[in-house]
């Protein structure tokens, strides 16, 4: 397709992250003309700085348009009784005395590839039971699609990404092996696995988005641990590489960074008749398409719908059922040197408390992974400033001895929807589009806190059993909202009164309006990374659209 934004296409997709990119590829490969826009810029692996002298000061690059603006309301009171999940600050293990939950923001990237650009690449299928949380446990809502139907889409998405994984993953039947073998366990994972075994738990290899062997033009991972800063080798399977590149290669998909969808026009017969797009220069364009796909994520998609006079909100459910990343990170120092800065971040995982009924009396599970990357103990400067005390030449020698001994563990839990967690519009702030920005309301009911406390306790038992004498540093979602996985807000379901899109992710009312991001999730899963499920759902949605629309 041409470089200039066309006036017409079969499908317009707004948002080029895990959902939009996969949908674009799935549609274009079957001959549909696709215009894929994103409010953020394009990135190139050469943009990432993991080989420069001051690499540790380099974060994922911020570019014009790469960060959305939003408000967060997350000020619930904190209580001393939850001491086991209060934050702890290194080096003196000082426990937080904060009295109110804070926001550390919604960690995301706007751009071609979306937040997969800085994810650590967890490629997880949900368990079959996770699709039936309401039927089985009376919480959240059931998915209108089941594991068995999604399985072939999972397998296709895994193929495109080149997922590296073990022969089997607990409780998830497979029709095909992972495309590439699991990565060898890092020394950190080996140490944590020994600890897990001592407390009756098991760590196994985590399915991840970087291939262990060359795959579809991408090299194998070389274990630098910098996934979160952007993969400069281009081995990590971010959606720009795994889906946008092949979508463009079909010749049917035009990709337009720094183009923001600001309005959808309603027409007769419950059809959307056009879209208004704002480019980086501030010029407005109109495009007409047979189908329109919103794929801007669980914060921006409801924002656009609500800001467009409640488009698609016949149920009143747009923005509701917001689900966030509820988790923790705990770090200590092992007595022995393991070189823990090396390896694929979170290359192993404990599934033992992941099943939705794994925790007595608490529906919804959690996953536990070894890490130093999530806790940011990946480089010497962070050790020197945060973990270590002391000064002088002896301090240098101590740092030289201790760097590589940090051992961390991270937890991510199920997050069930509740009425006090939702997305609406800011009453007093607009952005460059002229639309109100999104306002995120986050609240953790006691059940969420109890699940988190259970998972943190288990994870720290593992750390202690691995040989860590003390937890030096801990941060948890109890103290602050800092989500990177956000879900819900445009729930999919069969009932138009309780959901926003149907079982095929099409608006119940608007016959050519679709949603292809994590806003459609009726439940969050029990700590799994959402990207693979998003890929699978989006490819399936494309199939359904092509069947129904004959585009």
């Amino acid at each position: 397709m041409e470089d200039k934004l066309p006036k017409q296409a079969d499908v317009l997709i707004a948002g080029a992250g895990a959902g939009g990119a996969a949908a674009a590829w799935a549609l274009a490969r079957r001959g549909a003309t696709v215009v894929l826009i994103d409010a953020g810029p394009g990135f190139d692996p050469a943009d990432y700085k993991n080989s420069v002298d001051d690499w540790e000061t380099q974060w994922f690059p911020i570019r014009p348009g790469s960060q959305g603006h939003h408000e967060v309301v997350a000020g619930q009171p904190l209580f001393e009784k939850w001491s086991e999940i209060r934050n702890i600050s290194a080096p003196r293990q000082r426990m937080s005395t904060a009295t109110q939950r804070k926001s550390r923001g919604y960690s995301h990237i706007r751009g071609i590839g979306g937040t997969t650009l800085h994810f650590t690449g967890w490629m997880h299928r949900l368990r079959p039971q996770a699709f039936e949380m309401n039927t089985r446990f009376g919480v959240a809502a059931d998915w209108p699609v089941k594991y068995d139907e999604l399985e072939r889409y999972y397998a296709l998405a895994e193929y495109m990404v080149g997922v590296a994984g073990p022969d089997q993953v607990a409780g998830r039947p497979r029709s095909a092996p992972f495309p590439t073998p699991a990565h060898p366990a890092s020394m950190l994972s080996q140490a944590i696995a020994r600890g897990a075994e001592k407390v009756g738990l098991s760590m196994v290899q985590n399915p991840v988005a970087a291939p262990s062997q060359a795959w579809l033009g991408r090299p194998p991972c070389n274990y630098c641990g910098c996934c979160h800063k952007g993969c400069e080798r281009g081995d990590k399977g971010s959606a720009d590489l795994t889906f946008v590149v092949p979508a463009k290669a079909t010749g049917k998909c035009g990709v337009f960074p720094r183009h923001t969808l600001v309005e959808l026009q309603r027409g007769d017969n419950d059809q959307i008749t056009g879209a208004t797009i704002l480019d980086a220069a501030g010029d407005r364009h109109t495009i007409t398409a047979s189908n329109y796909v919103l794929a801007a994520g669980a914060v921006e998609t409801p924002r656009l719908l609500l800001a467009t006079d409640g488009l698609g909100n016949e149920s009143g459910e747009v923005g509701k059922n917001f689900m966030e990343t509820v988790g923790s990170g705990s770090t200590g120092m092992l007595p022995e040197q393991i070189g823990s800065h090396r390896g694929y971040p979170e290359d192993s995982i404990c599934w033992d408390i992941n099943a939705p009924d794994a925790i007595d009396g608490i529906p919804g599970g959690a996953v536990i992974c070894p890490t130093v990357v999530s806790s940011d103990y990946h480089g010497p400067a962070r050790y020197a400033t945060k973990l270590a005390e002391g000064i002088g030449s002896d301090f240098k020698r101590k740092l030289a001895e201790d760097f590589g001994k940090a051992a961390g563990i991270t937890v991510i839990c199920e997050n069930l929807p509740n009425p006090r967690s939702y997305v609406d519009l800011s009453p007093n702030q607009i952005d460059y589009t002229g639309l109100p920005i999104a306002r995120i309301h986050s609240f953790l009911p006691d059940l969420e806190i109890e699940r988190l406390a259970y998972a943190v306790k288990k994870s720290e038992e593992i750390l202690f059993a691995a040989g860590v004498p003390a937890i030096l540093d801990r941060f948890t979602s109890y103290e602050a909202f800092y989500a990177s996985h956000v879900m819900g807000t445009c729930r999919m379901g069969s009932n138009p009164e309780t959901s926003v899109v149907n079982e095929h992710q099409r608006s119940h009312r608007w016959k050519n309006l679709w949603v292809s991001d994590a806003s459609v999730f009726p439940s969050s899963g029990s700590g799994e990374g959402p990207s693979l499920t998003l890929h699978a759902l989006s490819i399936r949605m494309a199939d359904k659209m092509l069947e129904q629309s004959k585009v």
Partner: protein
Amino acid sequence: MLNEPLSGKAPVLSRRQFLLTAPIALLAGVVGWSFSTGDKTVKAFVDTLLPADELGPAASEVGGVEALKAEFDHSMLRRGELQLLMSWLDLNAGGSFASATADRQFEIVTALDALSEETVRWKIHRRARGAVMWHYFSSAERTMALGLPGAPQPDGYPDAHLPWVNS
């Protein structure tokens, strides 16, 4: 997956501590930095934190003074805090921290480092220490001099599953 956004984050003064410190700090900030004497104290402090030795250059030789000042250059209050810290150092050294012996300088800063984390001095010191340490050790060239790895790429760590020693 749950990245804490800031590295080397400095301790935060409580509201009470802030109110107690603010007038002194503001006064120091208004009076302005005494470069003739203050710079000597800053340099001596920075090099006490990280002196020249067989493991690498002194912090002041590689921009440590500038990094420290930059950390405290965001507001009049911050500049005042740094002035306050330097004044404490001078006071404890009997007038001039820069003129004290290296052993005495080390003793004073070690005592500062060991203070209760509730004290204002420790919080300001920890911020100052963090700025210098972060600057110094965020250079791959300097960490390699300690026997630590350099930048993770382009070579990566293909041996991540094998034992490791810092050379």
